[in-house]
């Protein structure tokens, strides 16, 4: 007697869930554009996006809310994908770019350029990528002992994170006259970000999203263990290196436009795993979508909750994320 597939293993369920997330993305987009000091009707949003009628709604939507919502979606997707990849290649459910120091690596080099060499501001994304890669490889070197060991990765990651965090603090102390830009960078915020930031991060999201989906099967095989993966013919070293670089690339691009934003890479992939399982073929699109939805809603909340004061979205994420992190720790 053959047993039938359980709900979580059914293709239709997984695809249905991804469609549901797409609808949620649309709702988050609408809510984010409607809400604010100036309430705009849903119907008007599309009118003013399509045509420049010189109205105040057009000003608010086109110059502020629309780019900010798009940016939130892109950053959320990048961070969530980065976390999903890191959890796979590092074989650790607690891996998240902000927890294990990849974001602070990106942050340190980003801030160095921002504060010490402000004339090269265009190099921030590249510097952030280099910082993220350095952090990732430091973690591997520190935790490698005849293979990857789960607990050592987190310990090494916390150490690396502390090290780069100290570097960031050092810069802020030595260049205290120039830290204003750097401070918002530290706290992860989407405020006063607009089209230039969207154009900076968009190529990273597109390239990253395409690559993770093309190579998702390789990561599926890698998580079965190095020996098994090698046995079926996977080039384990190249796969791990490639995916780590991709995770660093995605996290760094997010950090370079909105600063240090924690927990997205932890909460989102885990929620997805609980709902549709660990198959990366479905996990990657679902993770990207939920990352976008989460950050769009969080930013709308951060912007409107104490209006006119704005809470940095990083704080909202920490308030949601920290308890979730503890919940996962308890479950392990």
């Amino acid at each position, binding site marked *: *007697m*053959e*047993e*039938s*597939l*359980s709900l*979580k*293993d059914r293709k239709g369920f997984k695809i249905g869930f991804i469609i549901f997330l797409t609808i949620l993305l649309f709702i988050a987009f609408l809510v984010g554009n409607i809400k604010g000091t100036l309430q705009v009707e849903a119907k008007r949003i599309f009118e003013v996006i399509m045509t420049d009628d010189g109205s105040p709604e057009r000003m608010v939507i086109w110059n502020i809310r629309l780019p900010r919502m798009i940016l939130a979606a892109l950053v959320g997707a990048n961070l969530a994908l980065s976390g999903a990849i890191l959890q796979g290649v590092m074989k650790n459910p607690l891996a998240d770019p902000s927890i294990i120091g990849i974001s602070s690596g990106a942050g340190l080099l980003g801030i160095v350029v921002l504060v010490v060499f402000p004339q090269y501001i265009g190099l921030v994304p590249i510097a952030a990528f280099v910082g993220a890669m350095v952090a990732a490889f430091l973690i591997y070197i520190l935790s490698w002992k005849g293979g990857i060991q789960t607990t050592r990765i987190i310990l090494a990651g916390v150490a690396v994170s502390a090290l780069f965090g100290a570097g960031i603090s050092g810069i802020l102390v030595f260049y205290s006259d120039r830290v204003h830009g750097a401070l918002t960078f530290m706290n992860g915020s989407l405020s006063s970000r607009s089209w230039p930031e969207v154009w900076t991060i968009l190529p990273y999201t597109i390239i990253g999203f395409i690559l993770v989906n*093309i*190579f998702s*099967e*390789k990561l*599926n*095989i890698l*998580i*079965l*263990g*190095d*020996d*098994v993966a*090698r*046995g*079926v*013919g*996977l*080039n*384990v070293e190249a796969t791990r290196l490639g995916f780590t670089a991709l995770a660093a690339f995605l996290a760094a691009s997010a950090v370079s436009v909105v600063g240090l934003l924690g927990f997205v890479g932890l909460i989102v992939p885990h929620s997805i795993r609980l709902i549709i*399982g*660990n*198959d990366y073929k479905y996990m990657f699109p679902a993770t990207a979508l939920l990352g976008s939805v989460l950050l769009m809603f969080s930013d709308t909340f951060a912007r409107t909750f104490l209006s006119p004061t704005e809470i940095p979205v990083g704080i909202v994420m920490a308030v949601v994320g920290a308890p979730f992190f503890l919940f996962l720790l308890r479950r392990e």
Partner: protein
Amino acid sequence: MKDIILEVKDLSVNYKNKNILDGINLEIEKGKIYSIIGPNGCGKTTLIRMMSKSLKPKRGRVLLHGDDIFEMKSKDIAKRMAILNQNNTTISDITVRKLVQYGRYSYKNWWSGLDKEDEDIIEWAMEKTFVTSLKNRRIDTLSGGERQRVWLAMSIAQKPEILLLDEPTTYLDICHQLEILELVTKLNKEEGITIIMVLHDINHAVGYSDEIIVINNKNIYAKGDSWSILETKVIEEVFNVKTQTMIDKETNKPIFYAKKVI
């Protein structure tokens, strides 16, 4: 003429500055079943992991049909040789069908899906190992014996000429131990797959293999068929136990009995 499928030449391995294997030479003939035995820590697992490129040697070569595996692509090795690892403890929620499908990885490119031939081979692999009825189950819900058969199905879906097994019976009860060994023998007889396995139980090695390779003190201590190993003092010298050998009248194979520590 002997048909040599796998050849180990002057293989030496160090682990943490300690010499584990020292100058091993070994020839594996096509179509036979080999068992590797030896006391704990003698390097038998290291040897089999080396043969599958899971570890790199300090010196020496492993030749698959004359090609050095350390210079071959992983995919090309996987099409000829499969390995069943010791503790596949992976806690994964993938289904049996999906796991077996990964056995076809080395034949695929990232853009190509499964074709009819792959589907047939996957079905064949599951039938051979009696896991077809489990195909929709998640592997983390299977028992030890079922799980081992599923890993075996994945290995043979690679359509290998050689199958390496590292202690395939560990953690299984006696019935499931024999089930795996009988399955392996069947794959050897029906599909002509050359088998090399590390075994703990000497009687299993005696009963199921054409040749036994005894590893001791960083090198091959003895190699030969069951009788040649059990008739001599090899087991006593290597394992430090007093032994007695009897004959199984049905199969005319020896049965071994360890009486006490020397």
